[in-house]
């Protein structure tokens, strides 16, 4: 595609999933930009969420690449991969990387996030990794059957890492500091079922576990030591305890940064020529880690860059764990509280648990384990805030149920 003469220069820092989606919207709209994409990782956009299936051996890396070199070429996007940006000059409107400075008319910062590494003694030992990218995934795959791994963090990512390694015959122990797994997505009862099915896959789970130190030998990790003196031997230790927005560049450039780069509803930063997108942003005090809102941000930003009206609105989120045989779904708010009512379905023998949380006649949250077929339907009801009082009797059985008058005794009409 020939670049229009005198096209505005758009520079995008970071080729994560949000940036990739934003570029699709932009190019689909045929926006007249001269685009350069700079990425620290030596590759373009791939579906990071699909790393777990790759780890579990259910997919290959090639299958999860969403934008390859051909795509950038055919869409006339210049790329600088494997080339970290070292500086942003807001006054000069340039970004600097290894191959020199690059002017921009508009800049998009999509530097994403970096995994948080707990500064335990020994955290810098060889064999202590995070779970973020292809390299981390390859490290885990490289371990091979029979090896031992410890995963610190019983959240989404940690459990996907654990299950992926377990699927490859690696003996995994999950260390979780909270009382039950995935406490942000699951209530204790659902988490109990999840833990049971993970343990059925041969994964050890230790909750309420305080890590004290990572022990090493010849510079390589040997075991994790807990405050209760327990030692859990391992050949690899994966930390999956959360992410930190990557805001170093923005901070250095002098953009407004709180916990992350502050953006408005149009994804604009404190500098009118600079936008931010993805896990590196903070919108109305909220940070982001799940993909759905980031795709929404991408669409808003693309529209904004095309001078179209658009505004980013936060919505409640739903979670699915990509671990084969651990079917869970969580959406909305499921904290107990005044005026909140539960509808519960339990089938312990089948390992099924469903909990709907209702407030003022509306569905505000749902937690399901073992059977999540109706998750999307519940998620819609949560987002629409519709009054479900009339549906309540059959709600937990999903959309197939239609309310109608029923007999109330055993007497013929």
């Amino acid at each position: 595609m020939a670049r229009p003469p005198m096209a505005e220069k758009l520079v995008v820092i970071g080729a994560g999933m949000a940036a990739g989606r934003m570029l699709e919207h932009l190019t689909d709209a045929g926006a007249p930009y001269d685009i350069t994409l700079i990425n620290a990782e030596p590759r373009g956009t791939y579906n990071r969420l699909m790393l777990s299936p790759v780890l579990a051996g259910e997919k290959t890396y090639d299958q999860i690449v969403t934008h390859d070199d051909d795509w950038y070429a055919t869409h006339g996007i210049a790329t600088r991969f494997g080339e970290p940006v070292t500086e942003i000059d807001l006054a000069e409107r340039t970004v600097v990387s290894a191959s020199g400075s690059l002017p921009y008319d508009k800049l998009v910062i999509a530097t994403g996030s970096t995994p948080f590494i707990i500064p335990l003694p020994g955290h810098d030992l060889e064999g202590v990794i995070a779970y973020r990218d292809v390299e981390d995934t390859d490290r885990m795959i490289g371990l091979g059957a029979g090896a031992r791994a410890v995963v610190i963090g019983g959240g989404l990512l940690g459990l996907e890492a654990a299950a992926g390694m377990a699927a490859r015959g690696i003996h995994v122990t999950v260390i979780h500091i909270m009382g039950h797994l995935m406490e942000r997505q699951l209530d204790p009862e659902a988490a109990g079922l999840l833990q049971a099915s993970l343990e059925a896959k041969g994964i050890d789970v230790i909750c309420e576990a305080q890590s004290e130190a990572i022990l090493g030998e010849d510079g390589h990790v040997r075991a994790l030591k807990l405050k209760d003196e327990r030692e859990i031997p391992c050949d690899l230790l994966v930390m999956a305890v959360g992410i930190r927005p990557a805001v170093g560049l923005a901070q250095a450039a002098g953009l407004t940064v709180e916990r992350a780069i502050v953006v408005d509803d149009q994804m604009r930063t404190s500098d009118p020529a600079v936008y931010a997108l993805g896990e590196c942003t903070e919108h109305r005090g909220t940070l982001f880690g799940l993909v759905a809102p980031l795709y929404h941000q991408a669409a808003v930003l693309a529209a904004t860059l095309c001078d179209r009206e658009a505004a980013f609105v936060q919505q409640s989120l739903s979670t699915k764990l990509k671990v084969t045989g651990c079917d869970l779904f969580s959406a909305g708010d499921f904290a107990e509280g005044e005026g909140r009512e539960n509808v519960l379905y339990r089938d312990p023998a089948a390992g099924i648990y469903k909990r709907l949380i209702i407030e003022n006649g509306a569905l505000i949250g749902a937690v399901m384990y073992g059977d999540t077929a109706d998750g999307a339907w519940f998620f819609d009801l949560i987002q629409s805030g519709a009054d479900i009082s009339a549906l309540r009797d059959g709600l937990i059985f999903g959309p197939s149920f239609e309310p109608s008058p029923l007999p109330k005794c055993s007497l013929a009409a």
Partner: protein
Amino acid sequence: MDGTPLSTFKSTCAYCGVGCGVLLTPDGAGGVMVQGDPDHPANLGKLCSKGSNLGDTVGEALNASYRLRTPMVHGEESGWDEALQLVADQFRHTAETHGPDACAFYVSGQLLTEDYYVANKLIKGFIGTANIDTNSRLCMASTVAGHKRAFGTDTVPGTYEDLDEADLVVLVGSNLAWCHPVLYQRVLRARAERGTKIIVVDPRRTASCDAADLHLALEPGSDVALFNHLLAQIEVRGAIDDSFQQHTTGLDDALEAARADGSYVTGLSRETLAQFADMWIGTERVVTIFSQGVNQSTSGADKVNSILNCHLATGRIGKPGMGPLSVTGQPNAMGGREVGGLANMLACHLDLENAAHRQAVRGFWNAPQMPEAAGLKAVDMFRAVGDGRIKALWIIHTNPAVSMPEADAVRDAIAGCDFVVVSDVTGATDTARLADVLLPAAGWAEKDGTVTNSDRIISRQRSVLPHYAGSRADWDMLAEVGRRMGWTEAFDYGSAAEIFREHAALSGIAGALGRDFDISALADVSDAAYDALPPTRWPVTEARQGGRFFADGAFFHADGKARILPVSWRPPSAKRSPRYPFRFNTGRVRDQWHTMTRTGLSAKLSAHLAEPFLDIHPGDAATQGIAAADLVELRSPHGTAILRARITADVTPGQVFAPMHWTGETAPSARIDALVAGAVDPVSGQPESKAAVVAVTPFKAAWYGFAVSAKAPRPTSDYWALAKTAAGYRVELAGRTTPADWEAAARTLFGLGNNVGDNLGGGDQAHVTSVTDPARGLTRLAFQSGGRLLAALFVAPEPVAVMRDYLATRPGQAAGGVLLGRTPADMPDPGPVLCSCFEVGVNTIARAVEDQGLTSVDAVGRALRAGTNCGSCRPEIGALLASLRAREAAE
């Protein structure tokens, strides 16, 4: 089974007094297939829903779970020898130490004539007391008294053929459509063929009103005033048959009494009364059918005579198409009357209190003694049991602990009696559970003998199945006890035929003494001829066979004349008051019979009305704060009940109605005769079962439940009602206090053991699946094993709203989705069964009516077969069509 064709036997239905002939074909697996006998004059091949489903009440599976196998003595299995010796010794000992009147038999219209004859002979002629009464006392006694007062004998003048030839049929206190459906269908055929008019006299609008030209919703108990009004009008309009009056006496006194009665007490308008008089007086061929609404009253005998008076005054009796016709409740109530099963009767319609009669019978029996006074009638008998005057009691095939008035007191009296023998096919009745000695009796289709129906036809009940396990015929048990008491010759019977011949021979003596019941021409019937005996209407003498009585004016009083009795209206004995503001009527439903010991075994018959209920007028319901499907609490001076409210204008304000079928076995809070006072008719001794007084208030339930189960549940809640289903059982539940742990409570209810919290499903244990909505007090529990539903419980703080008839089909099926409590969206719910014969549900009919635009009961029948067999449900289908039309019009 091998390829040999099944053989079919003729027998008689086990239920009401219509006495329908049935064709029984043993299926070779312990059961029988049942069809109507086209050759039987009582039903000409027709059967009602109850008769059609008789096959559900016999069979090996049922026997194994329901029947008594051996005699039981104080709860322990025993041999026959030991048990019968104990019975003989106890009755002898009691008679010797306390006198014969300390002994009593309470028997039943379920007995065959031969059984009945031996029972009566044993106690009256040999033990020497007249303390034998029968549940016919609760059913027929007022008619017996009325007949005897008017005719000199207990004679049914006409025949069913009169229904084919009548131009007007008046139903008085009879819901013929539900209680004698085959006769009702016969009336409807006459209506179709010759335009026969129908009048219903009943405080309540019943299914019989559906085809009626006139419904007289008279004040309860005011029948005498109504027929006195008619009698007076008969005279005023010059309709007295003067020539016939040479055969009667008492007309003038009767007219005077009639004129003195105020017709206003009927609560009927002048116009209605005039219309009734016009139709009755203006129609020569009029049959007046009467039943429990007339009999079960403290003025029952007078009601009967007030009706007979009108037929005698007009001479409309014993001629084709006209006459009074009492329809009876039991298969052999009439046989019981013939053998003298009542405390004031002797065999063959002879009178105990008539010395000549006593002498004749005593001589014939060669009896050592014969009481000279009438024995105790049912109500007095159980009072005597209660206060210890009666110390040895033998109850045969009836359930007085449920069916007697003041039933709780009667139950306690039986429980407190020194020695109680109960003969029955099962130990699972309120009464059998109180017995010291339980004797397993051969059941219907096993036992052999004769019954007499409401129009004097003697029919054979034939043995087409072997006696189950160790069970024995009743005559055999009674005769054995007679022999063991020392009267070997008198009770040396070898077969039912021998007994029948003796009875027939005695009836010859009765005939010679001027009695109506004379079948002496059968006195020498051979065993083979007895086996082959076709339905035969008595009398059967050299001179006369069958036919009608009294057209010739020959009555059985000493002077050969009939009595037209002066009778006056009396109100029911129980008075309404602020404390007990409702008049409490009791009766029957379409598909159940008596205390359900037989019909309750049929899933088909249990699907129509599967729990006890109270009909209450919308206005009364509103003032009492009762909503549809609420439970209500009834209180009377004698007892309490909890029933489901059915709000309907079929009952008038101030009156409520409840069916009498439920028992301690099926719904302990619905033993409604516990609320009925033991007030009796002074002449007949029949209790007033239809005019008690009660208070009605909402039942304060903390929770309501509905459950289905493959195995019989064991409910214990304040309210429960159990019904059989094809897949097992269904049960309605409610309680004043909520269990702390519903799963534990449900496991107890369903007998599933307490492996609570078993969450990995160890083998065949019952896994629970639950849905709870704590804020709304909803709990639903399903128990399954191997993916098959064992049982499910649905609990709510208000009456549970679920598709009961669908859920009832689920036990034994795939367990998934049952907790939704309704059919999957793509599957229709048949709804409660309206047509029992073809199991067609209300919703199925409603859908067909809407989808296919059906407009008539016949059209529904063509589309779904509903109502095309016994026809008992046709009135309800008609009502459903009407309500659907009304709904359409409203939309």
